[in-house]
């Protein structure tokens, strides 16, 4: 990886990154909790994951340690896998209850 980018990243103080990714993470989490459309919820999940990726990258830059970036790739991979599964499940749901509203599904309770 090119030195320039690292330094570029380092210019911004770490706290900002942390704050930003916290913000993104919270937005994601809030979205997951409060939105009812499954598609959007999936996107919010992505958002959460990516905020983490951002954070990791920032950390790795600041610790000047590449392992975190490797981890980021793993995360992307896993996220992809999850989304695939998620979407397939979503299709199944659509088939069962003709809707993508998460709260349509509540036969199991109590």
């Amino acid at each position: 990886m090119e030195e320039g980018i690292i330094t570029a990243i380092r210019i911004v103080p770490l706290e900002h990154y942390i704050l930003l990714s916290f913000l993104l993470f919270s937005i994601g989490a809030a979205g997951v909790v409060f939105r009812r459309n499954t598609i959007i919820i999936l996107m919010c999940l992505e958002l959460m994951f990516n905020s983490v990726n951002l954070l990791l990258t920032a950390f790795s830059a600041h610790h000047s340690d590449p392992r975190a970036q490797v981890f980021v790739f793993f995360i992307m991979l896993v996220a992809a896998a999850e989304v695939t599964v998620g979407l397939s499940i979503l299709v199944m749901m659509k088939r069962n209850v003709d809707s993508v509203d998460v709260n349509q599904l509540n036969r199991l309770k109590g």
Partner: protein
Amino acid sequence: MRRCNNSFQAYRYTEMSVLVLLSVLGVVLLYLGLFNNRGAIAGVGIAGLLAAFVLVAADWHLESPLFNGIIQFDTYARSFSLVMIVVTVLLFLFGIDYYAKVKENVAEQYALMVFSLIGGLLICSFTNLVVLFLGIEILSIPLYILAGGKRDSFRSGEAAFKYFLQGSFASGFLLMGLALIYGATASFDLAAIEAFSTALVGGQDMIFLLGLFLTIAGVAFKVAAVPFHFWSPDVYEGAPTLITAFMSTVVKTAAFAAFYRLIANLQLPGAVETMLVVMTICTLFLGNIVALRQTQFKRLMAYSSIAHTGFLLLAFLGTDARTPEVLFYYLGTYAMATVGLFIVLTLAKRAALGDENIRIFRGLFQSNPWIAVATLLMLLSLAGIPLTAGFVAKYRVFVISLTQGYLWTTVVAVVMAIVGIYYYILVVREAFTAQEQESKPIVVAPLNWLVISICGAAVVVLGVMPGLLRM
């Protein structure tokens, strides 16, 4: 539990080959699915698992790092791996009968279980947080699919959906936690992190604390500790019984192994300790109390599983050398009892045409006395009545928590244990009450009979001679 120093050691074939073997096994099973030959599938699956068993059991006390020291296949890991493999074998045996009626996609079911098992092996041997994360995902993703295994069943679908959403949500927290820990310690390596935590003792590091906090939350989700338990009742009930059994045994075992491996040698900040205590009390309370009102057996088992999570967490409190020993014993015997019970449930459910109310056990003693007795033994074991393994397990947990000085937490646990006995006894009562009107008899295939007997016998033998199940 010794940890390897990070230095590169001689490449050992056997341990790694377990993972390789299992992955191959999964693929092979998928291929076998093409020639829709069930007997072969289960057979191959079991053979493969047994091979894995041998490989794990071989040169027992060798502890060698793998993959550049991100995995540590030590006694701890081996022991839990063995339990998981054995239980999976039992489930496969059960599967032969369970999937007998199903038309297609049987091979996928087996294969996914194997994959999930790999995840389990990974997380009970990790020494690097990355592996922890990957392992958990490898463990979970197949489960999301398995939970929805009954494509034509609404409930199964709902279960899969809920499991997936909450699972990924939790993964998010886990990831955040890991990232923060990394941020604080500049390393994913457990040893390093432990070193950091020891250095930190007394001091404060917000990032690290928060990181630990979220990580634990993420793992706690997997073991279904309150308040991260919401998924388990719904998923347990909705998922196909075989998968429910798999989740409440293999997955639970793996998750706990990982959980303890994570915090075992950490110098937990006081805040986290408190969190654990509160979590334990809540889990004990909610699991048992709500279980009182369950009439659906699978849901009952879900809450009882939460309750047992509570007891297991009790063994986490403080730092006691005996904890891994106890965890191992508890989980092993718990798995045995649970597998057996779920098989009995399936059989009774068939006879009752899909009803899952505990009433379906009625008349069991009339029709199949021995099965009834085995059921009794397994239930008593879960309830923790003496001379069953469950008693020894609970007893040892109490010993630990009292030794660590958690007097009141233990009192709560004891009270909750009484509550627990109540709902198990209700099931016993059903099983041993005579059936009034004539109903479809409960048929037990020889293979199932064998598995149930094994489980029933195991809980007593291990209860009388606990020494047999040692790490």
